[in-house]
């Protein structure tokens, strides 16, 4: 009969109308500035640079300015200038560091390619999404100081992933230490073979990063 389809439709909308008062599945609105949906751990926004310590972010950047992310960045929004000198990194190995590390967030599309290609776990995705600026050119061009955030912060926003990364880094560090020890032992053995040589000085163990406090 003519009109039944329309009446069915009216019934469905009436059901939704009533449902919106008692059924949370039918009222999905989140009143944003007052309410927030918790973002999932995997959420990504713009990249940041991981530093080992919050006190000296520039001195403890993990980045060794290998320029891989700069090359792989799809919209080419990363600019890195590599240092002339080397500084010891977390494992005590002398490495280059970035004197300039800029990310143009007005160009960045948050694709996470830089994070994936980074061999040093030094660039990670941030979760801050309430970003406003009055000038597209100056304020959205983030420099090294603005990008650097501590490992503790990384633990705070990506707990699972950060724990895994730390575990891996610790293992690498251990391997490096053992290698160094082995090298030292070999050296010592070599030195022992040469009776006049003094014992090799022990390599100071690097500071382990502070445990995560989410």
């Amino acid at each position: 009969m003519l009109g039944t389809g329309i009446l069915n439709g009216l019934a469905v909308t009436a059901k939704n109308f009533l449902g919106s008062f008692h059924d949370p599945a039918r009222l999905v609105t989140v009143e944003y500035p007052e309410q927030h949906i918790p973002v999932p751990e995997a959420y990504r926004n713009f990249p940041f640079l991981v530093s080992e310590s919050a006190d000296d972010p520039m001195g403890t950047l993990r980045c060794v300015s290998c320029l891989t992310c700069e090359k792989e960045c799809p919209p080419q929004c990363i600019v890195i200038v590599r240092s002339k000198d080397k500084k010891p990194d977390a494992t005590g190995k002398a490495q280059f560091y970035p004197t300039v590390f800029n990310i143009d967030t007005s160009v960045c599309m948050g694709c996470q390619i830089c994070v994936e290609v980074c061999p040093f776990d030094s660039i990670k995705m941030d979760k801050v999404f309430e970003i406003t600026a009055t000038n597209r050119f100056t304020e959205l061009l983030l420099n090294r100081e603005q990008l650097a955030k501590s490992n503790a912060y990384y633990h705070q926003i990506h707990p699972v992933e950060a724990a895994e990364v730390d575990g891996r880094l610790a293992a690498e560090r251990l391997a490096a230490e053992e290698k160094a020890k082995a090298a030292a032992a070999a050296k010592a053995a070599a030195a022992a073979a040469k009776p006049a040589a003094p014992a090799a000085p022990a390599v100071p163990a690097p500071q382990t990063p502070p445990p995560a406090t989410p």
Partner: protein
Amino acid sequence: METVEQLRDRLLARFPSAAVAAVTNPGAAAEHSLLLGAAQAREIAEFLRDDPVLRLDYCSNVTGIDWPEKEITDTVKSTVPDPAGGPSKVVETKTVRVEPGYLEAVYFLYSMALKHGPVIVRLRTANRTDAVTLPSLTPVWRSCDFQEREIFDLFGIVFSGHPDLRRLLLWDEFVDHPMRKDYVEPDDYEWEPTAHDEVLVRAKAHQAAVAAAAAAAPVPVVNPTSSAS
């Protein structure tokens, strides 16, 4: 389905005067293709569409490709016997030849009726400058309509017999074909102090050039005070 070679032979038997060649694809996909001469491409395409064994009724994709002129250095080693009777010398003669460039349109044909494919058909222009006309296959498969227009727009292949050959994506006044490998981007970028210094430098240079041209040109100077009064 027939292999490309079988198909080539069948086409040559059907169209004795046509130029048909098989092009091998060295990649892992190993989808080989047929290179058709432009002269009889339309008839061959209709044959491919209507042949009861093939029934390639569906042209999925048309790709335009630019192959610019390549300088190829051929090194020919020849042994020249020493006239003095010593050990013969190996002489390398290097000849530089320019492999002519061409534009290419690649058609991917499938059969929806028989559910097989693809048969890949390539058409090539004679060069990249003045002889860039290819026969349009839009009258055979209408799905080529927008794709051929796009290739005309971005590569500059002129498809003769296309019902409505206009630029598809760029505006009509646009002059170049940006997908060509030798396309030079215009330098009149909007001035944007981004991290891309290269762009910035070019934009500044452009603006300086424009200003210089404006200063050099005998433009009648409008006196603002006189026009205001």
